[in-house]
């Protein structure tokens, strides 16, 4: 009897752990399922491995035209970045997409985002003027400062 009770308790504890770690608890039943469309509308972050990058492509030549039309009113001929301070080129794409231009008078399309990113990386000496960026090539751009960054365990 004592053994059976012990086994029952162990099973309950195991079930409880699995519930917390693997399954939605739905303890309070609040909120509703997030649908695919509302997730897709907000899920804009781009990882260093390229996850989250859209299709499309662009180079610095196209980027120069877009920069002049959309960015020059605040940034002049280009933003002088310190490439040593940006560990990943994908971060630049991500930031331009989420934050620029700040007044949202225009929204840059994926081709334009790749082109502006290429323009910025080119004028700051990271890539060549003729390099084309897309979802495959952008994550392969190695920023010169990457090795100086570290993350504590």
């Amino acid at each position: 009897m004592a053994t059976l009770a012990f086994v029952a308790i162990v099973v309950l504890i195991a079930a409880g752990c699995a519930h917390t770690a693997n399954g939605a608890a739905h303890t309070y039943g609040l909120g509703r399922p997030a649908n695919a469309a509302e997730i897709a509308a907000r899920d804009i972050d781009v990882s260093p491995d390229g996850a989250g990058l859209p299709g499309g492509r662009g180079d610095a030549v196209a980027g120069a035209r877009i920069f002049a039309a959309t960015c020059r009113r605040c940034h002049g001929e280009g933003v002088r970045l310190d490439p040593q301070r940006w560990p990943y080129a994908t971060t630049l794409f991500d930031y331009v997409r989420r934050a620029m231009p700040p007044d949202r008078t225009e929204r840059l399309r994926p081709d334009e985002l790749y082109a502006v990113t290429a323009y910025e990386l080119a004028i700051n000496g990271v890539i060549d003027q003729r390099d084309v960026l897309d979802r495959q090539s952008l994550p392969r751009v190695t920023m010169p400062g990457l090795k100086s960054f570290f993350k504590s365990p």
Partner: protein
Amino acid sequence: MRNHAGTPTLDPRTHRVIVHGMVSSALSFSIADLMRFPSVERMHFLECSGNSGRGWRSLGEGVQYSHGLLSCALWTGVPLRTVLDEAGVRPGAGWVIAEGADGALYDRSIPLAKALDDALLVYGQNGEMLRPEQGYPVRLLLPGFEGSANVKWLRRLKVVGAPAYSREETAQYTQPGVDGRVELFNFVMDAKSVITFPSPGDGLREPGFYEIRGFAWSGRGRITGVEVSTNGGATWAAATLDELRGTKCLTRFTFPLRWDGTPVELQSRATDEAGAVQPTLAALVAARGPSLRYHVNAIARWRIAADGTVSNLDA
């Protein structure tokens, strides 16, 4: 309190926070949903990681310039853990990307351990709803973490395996150390204190009795002691701590001063329950290098001149 892209106007009747990524069920919450969860109220400080950094000091000499990017408030909200449990965090998750609905869609990566520890989704501050510039209708509150990680106007929480490496956690809010290497995800604001009276711009009028007053705080827990030196750090004596000594919360201290009208160098030094002692500026420079933009918790040095005016010896 600072913003990265203005203060958005969000309608609390339509604004939603979505939780997705490595969860069993992606969920979407209205503000009313979030306010129905079991709630907590806690007092915590918020400090900009640039508080006391060298960039701000050039603006003026008062303590408001050297230490003013700091506040402490009563926050009302739901533990983030409660909300994440509702969605069910899947094995392998290690981070949560928190994203705001401001003009920059500002995002930061938060360690899952912090999210499941004492992080809150807050909608109330000091007994009223959050004000727009404080993140209305809902923001993240990460007790003891640098202010900029406490994402305001929250619209999305994405549970992930690795950080986002967003601009604001790589190119910004980081600094090279002594060896030139840059540590990422250095969040905790360490033990610190400051004497607010007397302080630069708020001096003494005549010899006699005064009460030295100030605050101490630490992102690693409670303040266990504050010492004051009236002789430039040669000797130290314990200050009196007020009763309110919350964890990751401003703690007020006082210390009696009988001023004889001769020059005095005042300092205060905090110790927290993790055992950390507030360092001197020289020790901080030796440990971290000269580019002290962020996480500057050095002992402040005030000099009272014979005429009672106070100056910052490190300004």
